[in-house]
């Protein structure tokens, strides 16, 4: 009888130990998952004169009102607009600004995946990008952004536009901080040995970090999106062109 009781007590102690271990392990794993970094970005336009500045004021105002967040951990990042309401968008300027500034970007450096969400009408697509989308050339030029020394990097990208019948050329430029060793950035401007704190895709509209919050708490999970159709850049370009042609010339 006594022996049975001792065996029972031992089993109970073992079970409790396993339960406590599991509990601590789960807490540890959960806390690791929540340990992400958040950076807030805003958008503006590099000025080059006053004349047209006034002319395009409404759209620029819409760009300036937008706010984006880059959330990342050691391996993944998402870049998306901050959820907020934009009042007085009767002319659809915010809609245009948001479309141009991007909806959602995802990057995973382990699986080497990079994608951007895009929409045509009510259909949602995830455009699969080349993982090393930009071949960066790093210069020795520096500037301080929010206390971080940033280096300038430039790249080149081109793409054929069927609707225009010409090749578009872009010269992206970014400023990245090697002291924040995360290969992420806004608007898919990434792949550098440091976080991008300022960057432009076309040399005019640029994204700049306003709050750099290391180790922030967020409920957003850095998961690969699944609620849309995955297409390559070429496929998406074809769908977009076909849709535009139907709308413009098919009526």
């Amino acid at each position, binding site marked *: 009888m006594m022996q049975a009781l001792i065996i029972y007590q031992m089993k109970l102690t073992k079970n409790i130990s396993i339960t406590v271990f599991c509990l601590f392990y789960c807490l540890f794993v959960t806390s690791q998952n929540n340990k992400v970094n958040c950076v807030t970005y805003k958008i503006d*336009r590099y000025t080059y004169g006053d004349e*047209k500045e006034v*002319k*395009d004021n409404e*759209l620029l105002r819409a760009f300036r009102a937008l706010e984006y967040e880059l959330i990342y951990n050691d391996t993944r990042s998402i870049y998306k607009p901050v959820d907020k309401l934009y009042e007085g968008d009767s002319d*659809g300027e915010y*809609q*245009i600004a948001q*479309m*141009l500034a991007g909806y959602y970007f995802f990057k995973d450096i382990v699986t080497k995946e990079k994608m951007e969400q*895009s929409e045509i009408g009510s259909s949602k697509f995830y455009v699969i990008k080349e993982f090393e989308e930009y071949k960066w050339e790093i210069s020795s030029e520096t500037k301080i952004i929010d206390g971080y020394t940033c280096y300038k990097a430039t790249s080149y990208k081109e*793409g*054929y*536009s*069927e*609707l*225009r019948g010409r090749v*578009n*050329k*872009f010269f992206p430029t970014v400023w990245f901080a090697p002291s924040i060793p995360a290969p992420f950035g806004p608007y898919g401007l990434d792949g550098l040995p440091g976080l991008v704190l300022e960057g*432009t*895709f*076309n*040399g*005019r*509209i640029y994204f700049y970090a306003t709050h750099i919050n290391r180790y922030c708490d967020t409920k957003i999970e850095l998961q690969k999106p699944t609620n849309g159709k995955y297409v390559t850049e070429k496929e*998406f*370009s074809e769908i*977009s*062109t076909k*849709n*535009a042609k139907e*709308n*413009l*010339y098919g009526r």
Partner: protein
Amino acid sequence: MKKVIFSAIAMIAFVGSSMANTLEVEKIETPPQSCISSAIFQVNEYEQINGCLSDTQYNFMLQHYFNKCQSKLTAIDPC
């Protein structure tokens, strides 16, 4: 008799000409140039100010300005 006929013709001519002057000239909104041309112009202008657009951005912008132009045309004559 000739006088009567002449007076009648003169009267008709006078009334006609005076009527012609008082007729209200209906204001016809001249439709803007083709909405496609208008949209292309606007997107080009946008690019001048804000930098080049990618292929898909261009398609989106073009449709946006085109739809805006079309809806303005519809608004002129709701019937």
